[in-house]
C-alpha cells in the first residue's frame, strides 16, 4: 500500500513568487491534514479536509495560503506571494476516519516539503 506522498520534497523560491505543494493521501482516506513546522519549532496545524470539504481551516496563517482538494483525492497548498517567514517544512497527513476518536485510527504522514523562501 502506498503511503502519503508529497511533492516536491524541496523547493527554493524568492520572496514574492508562488509555490504550490501537493499531497497525495493514502487511497480511501477521507481525512487530509496540512501542518507546518517553522525553524524547528512545534508542528502547527494548518487545516483539515474531509473529502473535498474544509472541516477546519483555522490554522491557516493568512490569505496568502490557499488549500484545495479537488474531488476529495489529492490536495494542493498554494502560497502566493511567498514571504520569508513562510519558510519551513510542510507536512501532509491522512486518515480514514477521525484519528483519536476511533480505536486504532491514526494519522499517516508524508515526508514533508522543505520550503525555503529567499
Amino acid at each position, binding site marked *: 500500500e502506498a503511503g*502519503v506522498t508529497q511533492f516536491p520534497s524541496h523547493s527554493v523560491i524568492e520572496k514574492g513568487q508562488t509555490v504550490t505543494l501537493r499531497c497525495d493521501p493514502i487511497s480511501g482516506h477521507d*481525512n487530509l*491534514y496540512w*501542518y507546518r513546522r517553522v525553524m524547528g*519549532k*512545534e*508542528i*502547527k*496545524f494548518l487545516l*483539515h479536509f*474531509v473529502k473535498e470539504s474544509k*472541516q*477546519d481551516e*483555522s*490554522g491557516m496563517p493568512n490569505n496568502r495560503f490557499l488549500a484545495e482538494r479537488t474531488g476529495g483525492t489529492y490536495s494542493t497548498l498554494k502560497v502566493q506571494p511567498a514571504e520569508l517567514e513562510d519558510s519551513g517544512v510542510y*507536512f501532509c*497527513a491522512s486518515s480514514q476516519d*477521525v*484519528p*483519536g*476518536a*476511533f*480505536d*486504532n*485510527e*491514526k*494519522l*499517516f*504522514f*508524508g*515526508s*514533508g516539503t*522543505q520550503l525555503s523562501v529567499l
Partner: protein
Amino acid sequence: LAKTTQPISMDSYEGQEVNITCSHNNIATNDYITWYQQFPSQGPRFIIQGYKTKVTNEVASLFIPADRKSSTLSLPRVSLSDTAVYYCLVGDSNNDMRFGAGTRLTVKP
C-alpha cells in the same frame, strides 16, 4: 480543544527505560490518546494509542490513569536510534489534530 503539556526535553542513556508523561486535563469522554515519534527530516510516525489503563505493543507501552488526565509513554531499553521528538495528541470533538511542542529525547551512549 484538549491541550497537551509535555516536558520540552529529556536525556537518557542506552539500555535505560524512558518514561515521558503528557498532561491533558481537558480530555473528552470519547477522546483517544495517541503518541507519535518524529525523526529529523521525516514526518511523524504513529507509535501507540490508548483509551484507558495500559496498552503495549512491540515498541512501547502507554499507561493511562483512571481519570485520563495524563498519560505516560514508556520506552523500554532505549537505543541511540530512539533519539527523536515524541508528541502526545488527544482527539477532540472538532476532529482537528493539533500537536503540542513535543518532547525531544536524546539518548546518549
